[in-house]
């Protein structure tokens, strides 16, 4: 019996697109965009809670990535590097909007409102669609921590560093977000 040679694909052999893009290859950069746009857009939508704004931010992220690609040394995976960059872009944007938009994201005041709702277990199957809407409706501070921790998998320490807060405050925001989501979904 002969051992067949395994089929190879061009992807296994071609020059890394991030390397090509860093040297100014737009087509390589477009391939990177196609590979990563869904993940970045998803992050942006959930972080800001608005599709239109998220689309603009997604574009900002890729423009910024193009400008900074020279600094990408290929030590980390490109996807990881890009994701971090996207978090920064979104958070910086939020900082500028914070003054304008969120006047009532002031801490734990709304916890009382949700302490004693009726006790009905959450039904998992229909949760998905409602959950997106409920996340979007969270106060921005709680939403960011929830998205970064429970969806994107960053640790409290990482998130605290990104947001410039203590990790205790970060944990409190996460708990708050979860309780608000529970209340919203139980309604």
């Amino acid at each position, binding site marked *: 019996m002969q051992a067949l040679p395994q089929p190879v694909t061009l992807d296994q052999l071609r020059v890394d697109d991030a390397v090509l893009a860093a040297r100014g290859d737009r087509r390589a950069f477009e391939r990177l965009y196609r590979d990563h746009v869904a993940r970045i857009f998803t992050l942006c939508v959930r972080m800001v809670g608005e599709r239109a704004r998220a689309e603009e931010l997604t574009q900002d992220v890729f423009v910024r990535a193009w400008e900074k690609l020279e600094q990408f040394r290929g030590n980390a995976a490109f996807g990881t590097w890009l994701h971090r960059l996207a978090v920064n872009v979104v958070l910086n944007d939020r900082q500028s909007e914070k003054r304008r938009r969120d006047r009532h994201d002031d801490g734990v005041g709304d916890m009382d409102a949700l302490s004693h709702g009726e006790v009905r*277990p959450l039904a998992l199957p229909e949760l998905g669609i409602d959950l997106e809407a409920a996340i979007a409706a969270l106060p921005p501070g709680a939403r960011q921590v929830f998205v970064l921790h429970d969806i994107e998998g960053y640790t409290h320490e990482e998130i605290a560093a990104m947001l410039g807060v203590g990790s205790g405050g970060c944990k409190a925001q996460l708990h708050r977000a979860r309780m608000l989501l529970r209340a919203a979904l139980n309604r």
Partner: protein
Amino acid sequence: MTHSMIACEEAQRLASERLDGALAAAQAALLDAHLAACADCRAVATDLARLRTATARLPALTPSRDLWDGIAARLATPVVPLRATRATRMRPSVRRLAAAAVIMVAATAGGTWMIATRSANRMSQPVAGPRLRPQLVAVADQKGIAAYEDAIAHLRDIVARRRGDLDAKTIAVLDTNLKVIDHAIAECAAALAADPASTVLAEQLNRVYDAKLALLRSAALLPSHT
């Protein structure tokens, strides 16, 4: 706090925290004691766990329109540096490695040749091939590439003579792989021509040539069809 030593608020906080990892033993005991006695907090704990599961299952979202054109319009035109002297920028370390590559490629090609010849002489047992060269060697100068091409020509010769020995499926995969690899070599060589000093590209070209060598070598060493 009607039920036990901690308040409901604290119990719910701990229940939430436990989703992210183990609590200290003392805290876990307090929480469990509370949950055993308090239906409200049990419901909260169950819901939070369900919420966690649902969150993990959220699918990726896609934009409503293609965002690429808007991005492309904002990308600054790349500045392509003009290189007057193209071939002279090779780093010394790359040169030294290239010299090493010449020797190693020649050596492994020779070894393969001997084994392949023996295997063509109706050896009934599969022959253990020579180990593939494990380390990465940059060969991005003409001398290094020529050494690779020599070795490849050599192996191609062997494989061509063995075609009758190999079954049709094997030959089909072999031919497809060679096409893919040649495409990658061309792509990489073009990138390297534009930026001859790039060690990343040199190493990549080296890797692709290695893949080609390995493929041909394994084809040369395949036991006969019958």
